[in-house]
């Protein structure tokens, strides 16, 4: 240290400092959003409404699943990642290693993971334990839960989906049964169950249109609830979760304005319109 040419180093560091500040204040008018398929209809609605109000800002939304979105955030391929599950510690470590931040987590909506059944199914409610047994393959026939004598057919999401991970970690708590058919999107799960009298599937509340919703209870002795604004808000519905937006850094400029708008009453009103539940 004693022999270093301090002036040269000071000049070098000054140049770097100026560079850092200049880059930080570059205004971003194009926002890319990628991730959760559960959230894609909501994100698109937000984007359309916001772009109509702010023509100078372009918001580009794509799905792919929460895992894909988080990878894109880490790789720098998206500005905002939509995720229907929390980021894992290993993913935060990757963000730390590449960007030296822990990421910014913004809960932007609430959801009750909905259990879809065919309208002709006699079953109207299931406990978390029964759901775990069904999706882990320990219960294979509807008669084991009080239904018809028919084989249960399972429909779920792909492993890049946040809903897949959340449902597995919080409900199934084991590996999914090998015969659980994975489908690319909640709409596909709903369609599959609509066509299969012995089918059962799970997904976001916003997709539960034209399908039978199964009530869920915490255990055999608890009351069963449907995912509604009230039961989700009061955390009565047992499979309630937040939907998140993740960023690499604290938002500035156009991105901050956009996120503030999403969390405003106007943005949160759209959450309800789509079929999810507002955080505020």
């Amino acid at each position, binding site marked *: 240290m004693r022999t270093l040419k301090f002036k040269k180093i000071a000049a070098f560091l000054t140049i770097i400092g100026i560079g*850092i500040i200049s880059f930080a204040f570059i205004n971003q008018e194009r926002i890319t959003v990628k991730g959760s398929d559960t959230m894609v209809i909501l994100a698109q609605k937000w984007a359309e409404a916001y772009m109509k109000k702010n023509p100078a800002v372009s918001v580009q939304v794509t799905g792919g699943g929460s895992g894909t979105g988080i990878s894109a955030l880490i*790789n720098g391929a998206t500005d905002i990642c939509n995720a229907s599950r929390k980021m894992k*510690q290993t993913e935060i470590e990757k963000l730390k290693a590449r960007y030296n931040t822990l990421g910014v987590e913004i809960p932007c909506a609430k959801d009750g993971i909905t259990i879809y059944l065919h309208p002709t199914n006699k079953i109207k409610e299931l406990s978390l334990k029964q759901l775990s047994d069904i999706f882990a393959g320990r219960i294979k026939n509807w008669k084991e839960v009080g239904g018809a004598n028919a084989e249960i057919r399972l429909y779920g999401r792909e492993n890049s989906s946040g809903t897949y991970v959340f449902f597995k970690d919080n409900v199934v708590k084991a590996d999914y049964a090998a015969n659980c058919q994975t489908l690319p999107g909640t709409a596909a799960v709903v369609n599959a169950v609509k066509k299969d009298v012995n089918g059962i599937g799970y997904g976001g509340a916003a997709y539960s249109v034209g399908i039978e919703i199964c009530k869920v209870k915490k255990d055999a002795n608890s009351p069963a609830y449907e995912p509604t604004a009230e039961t989700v808000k009061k955390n009565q519905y047992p499979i309630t979760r937040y939907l998140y937006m993740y960023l690499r850094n604290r938002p500035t400029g156009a991105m901050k304005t956009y996120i503030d708008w999403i969390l405003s009453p106007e943005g949160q009103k759209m959450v309800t319109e789509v079929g999810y539940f507002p955080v505020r």
Partner: protein
Amino acid sequence: MKKFIFLIAMLGCIQMNAKAQSVEDSLKEQISEMKDRINGMDERLMTSESDVSKLTKIKFSGYIQAQFDNFENKAIQPNNYFSLRRTRLKAAYEATDGIKFVLQSEMGPAGFALKDAYVVLNDHWIKSGFFAKAFSLTAGKFNRLNYEVEYSSSQREVPERSGVIRAIYPDERAIGLKLEINPESLPLKLQLALLNGNDGGFNQFSDTTGKSAKTIIENKDYDNFKDLMARATYSFKLGSFGGLDIGAHAYYGSLKSNTNATLRSDYATIDSSKTGDAVKRNWIGAEFQFFADVLGGLSIKGEYITGKNAILGGSKFANGNLLPNFQNNFAGYYVYFIKNIGKKNQFAFRYDYYDPNTDIKGADIKVLNYTGANSMKIGKLNSSKADLAYTTFTFAWHFYFDNNIRITMAYAIVQNEKVGTNAAGVGNLTESYTNPDGTPGVNDYSSIFKQNQLTLRLQAKF
């Protein structure tokens, strides 16, 4: 006539009906055939899906680091060249939830080397409570428990690990068993490992008789002593501002003595011991990593390690002498400053200090020699270049061309500890070399001579 027309009409109707029936039957047959075909396709699709889902459990990753180095130290000849620093291919197979196999190889021009080979078993049985899914057991060859060791070279912000880490964890890996406790409800991570601890043969003296001293078979242990290692880290979140991780690690190990003496790094004390006794290698370290979201990401990371390392001596040499074991007190530390600039650029600076012998000063080097009654006339009883402390300042700039490509320019300013001078004013430690034009040259360690290094690296990662 009317009857005849009626009869004809009836016959026509019957024929049409028969035709319709035949068309219906044919359609039914075709639908049934199509259904069978679809069912067949469904079955095949299910089989393919099952096969593909098995394949998705295998993940390949890797990276290649091609670089150009320029050394200012004239004793290094050639002093500039292109090289492949690392060429890694990693395969991970997650057989089922909680069981993972990992193989990583280095496939450089020098040949094939197995870097990692381990199996991880995650706890599947504790499903609720504080320790739910908290335990994992790793067996095989894996990184030793240290922040800079476990931090991937493909991600590290300067080209090489710091001096102290390279000295005490050569090759970074060891064979053994590791238990990790990582509770989901607490940002705490505890690691405990039992290792062979032979460092792959790196901790033996070069044999002065010409016989290779690195005779330890890397796949087995050299002795019956097992080394114990532990590390604990805890993460604090500092709101939306960032986070602070703190941690500590300790190493408690031994090597089996091949000789009956151990020289301490003061070059004044020899401890007598029997062949087969344990030569201790113990050290402790403390670390921190601070992350802040200030105009983009910023981090400051550091670690301090101090303790006692050891190198094994030899058994009887041709001249009948013994080479004693050498036990050195050491200390080393590093501090990184890293700043992301936009999405594509990153600046890094590291201050790195390593003193392999804290018992003697630079002025003592080559002056202090063991001269006691048991003097064994072996060169290693003299203090030498190996006792010199080094300070390195590394500046690096990274440009992330895309998700896979990183271009790095790094400049390391290397400074040696100064040694004393003799009556003629010449350093007590000098190093002779030959210039490319054949003229002789000398590096005098009584001053800080030019030994900086420029590295230009292109890294492709997938």
